[in-house]
């Protein structure tokens, strides 16, 4: 036998050993892809983790068309399963006994936790997510008014995958709905940055005609990793525009012409900006926002030129009111969700080092300037 033949045989054997499988392999059809997760506390004080997962065979059969959520009904392509434990990781590990599939977090898209969990502190939950390499930083974080797992059992028309539903709902910005998006990465950065607290969209499972549907009710305010209060729906709108990253969407106003006239405007561009002035321990903030608006619907006869400044003034009033309400709530909770402290930290660091922000923030005065520019033309008229 020549050397080449021996080498070929050896190479073949090596390839057979090295490339024919994986060490500690997990077959794809043995995995349960956790798409959404809900964290609650039980009456016994334990942590309860509920996972929302697809059933691959039923997805392939096209099951679940026509809507519905989790819960694991016979026809549903998704199911939920819960585990309890003294820590989040412990509860999660107990999920394994409830399903024939091995839970896998690589496709986790949404994490919802109840207010009772949030008020005790999110540190442990976030630690679990952060330590797991498979969990991406763009996982959407949501808070639930009651039981978080209820939001994984709601029914949404034409979308059985609730993780996808929640992600799309918050991606599609709409000022009237007070939507904003806080993902794991943003939350971690906000909590690490000095002078910046976080707000998370707050939802509840509303029961109507025997069906549960999700409803956005406001925002949970998180300070130093714990929920310290809430923003109402109206306050959330102000937060979404000023600091929640909402730069598109629609806004509907009234009170500019005849009493029953409404106008729905689409925000083409929004440019919010905060500035601060510091004199001793007095901090004065200025919030300004420029908005380019396009008319989408007007319920009156004709949007005449003399109405344009009146509409702009109405938009300005509405947004100013929303923002001031959000700011007042943040001050009353002493939680700087608008990031004015962060602005001081980065842009006026010398002054920051002399300030006790927790004592300064409730006394910060603010000036608001909203500059809408309305284009009265729609697409067809």
């Amino acid at each position, binding site marked *: 036998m020549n050397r080449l033949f021996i080498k070929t045989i050896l190479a073949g054997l090596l390839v057979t050993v090295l490339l024919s499988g994986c060490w500690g392999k997990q077959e794809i059809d043995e995995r349960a892809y956790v798409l959404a997760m809900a964290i609650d506390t039980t009456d016994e004080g334990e942590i309860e983790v509920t996972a929302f997962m697809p059933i691959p065979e039923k997805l392939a059969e096209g099951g679940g068309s026509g809507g519905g959520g989790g819960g694991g009904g016979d026809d549903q392509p998704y199911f939920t399963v819960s585990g309890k434990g003294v820590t989040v990781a412990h509860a999660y590990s107990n999920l394994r006994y409830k399903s024939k599939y091995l839970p896998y977090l690589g496709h986790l898209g949404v994490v919802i936790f109840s207010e009772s969990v949030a008020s005790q502190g999110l540190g442990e939950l976030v630690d679990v997510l952060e330590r797991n390499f498979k969990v991406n930083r763009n996982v959407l974080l949501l808070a639930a008014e009651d039981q978080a797992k209820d939001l994984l059992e709601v029914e949404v028309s034409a979308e059985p995958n609730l993780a996808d539903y929640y992600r799309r709902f918050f991606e599609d910005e709409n000022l009237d709905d007070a939507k904003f998006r806080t993902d794991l990465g943003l939350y971690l950065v906000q909590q690490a*940055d000095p002078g910046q607290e976080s707000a998370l969209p707050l939802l509840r499972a509303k029961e109507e005609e025997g069906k549960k549907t999700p409803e956005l009710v406001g925002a949970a305010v998180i300070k130093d990793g714990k929920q310290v209060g809430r923003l109402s729906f109206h306050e959330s709108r102000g937060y979404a525009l000023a600091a929640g990253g909402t730069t598109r969407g629609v806004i509907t106003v009234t009170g500019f012409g005849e009493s029953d006239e409404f106008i729905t405007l689409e925000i083409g561009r929004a440019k919010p900006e905060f500035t601060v002035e510091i004199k001793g321990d007095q901090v004065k903030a200025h919030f300004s926002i420029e908005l380019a608006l396009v008319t989408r619907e007007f319920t009156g006869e004709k949007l005449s030129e003399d109405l344009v400044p009146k509409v702009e003034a109405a938009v300005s009033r509405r947004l100013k009111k929303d923002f001031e309400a959000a700011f007042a709530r943040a001050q009353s909770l002493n939680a700087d969700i608008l990031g004015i402290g962060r602005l001081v930290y980065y842009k006026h660091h010398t002054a920051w080092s002399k300030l006790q922000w927790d004592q300064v923030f409730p006394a910060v005065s603010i000036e608001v300037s909203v500059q809408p520019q309305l284009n009265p033309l729609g697409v067809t008229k």
Partner: protein
Amino acid sequence: MKITSHQALVLLVSFIIGGGFLSIPGAGVKVIKGAAWAPILLLGVANLISLYLLAGVLQKFGGRSLTEFSEMLFGRLLGKIIPLILLLFSLLVIPLSLSVLHDLTSNTLLLATPKWFVAGTFVFAAVYLVDKGLGVIARVLELLFPVGLLAVATVLFAARTNIYWLHLYPADISIQKTAVEGLADISFSYAGGIYLLILFPYLQRQENAKRISVWAILLPMIIYLAVTIAAVGILGANEIERLTWPSLEIAKATDIEAAFIHRLDIIFVVLWLIALFTTAVGVIFVAAYVILSWFNINQSYVTYGIGVAALIAAVLPNTSKFMQQYSTTFGLATYFMSLGLPLIIWVASFWRQPQQQKQRHYGGEQQ
């Protein structure tokens, strides 16, 4: 056997960029927090100057091998010290690379795979490549290099929309308690430049050595700075302080809309594996080169022997602990390697003149 200037540049850059690529923003933050980029830039410039000076000396002394060049400068006995330093450095880097490799892969890609298998496969591939000689190494790295560069550029381009510009304001610029540790990590990230000492005799056009030395440091420096600025911009210095692999978190925070790849972090992990692999190839090559220049042994025995020894050292239970314990000391020692040694050679070159001597090359025609 000769290599082109482009191949020499790719070899040097690949030897320089290693495991530190994922942690360098953290190293910068450990030094001066808000201006993490500053020590990376300063050490880059310092390394660039020292390597440029070294290239000048090498050009002056012509295409001599490391052993001849070293003995010509420092005499027969002292002249053995430079190759010895390179050998010891290389022998320490191999198990360190293998330990780091296992630490990351066991948390990311190969969860249940034992260390001996991960490290063994990696070492075997590296040793096999080294045994084929410098020309083959150069050609393989020439293929890997643009792929890596393109992938880094893609991720950073996609990540730009996540940058929060306020994070880049120079707030909280103060020397940190962890500065020494951070400086050691940064220095280690530039340490491969000294291998120009070995690559120089193989250069087809030795008059390009200075230009190669400049680009060999500039390219890693630009990549390190881009990754650091992106990491600080996206995560902020305060968040980076808490993270082991900040560069990986940039990719985890980034999504390319409409792209078919959902997990960009996997790209960074693969890039990191490539960087670690090319560095391992470099150090195994250097170790084998020095041993072969001293002893008349079969090349394959030496390269495979180094691989087996490194593998045994890497899988010993105390290696990871030892490496962690002495990583700062080890990193600080690289200051001597990358900054001190070129300067000593440069100074010594003023009172030693080049003489004609025979050449001996690894993997070449005059073995």
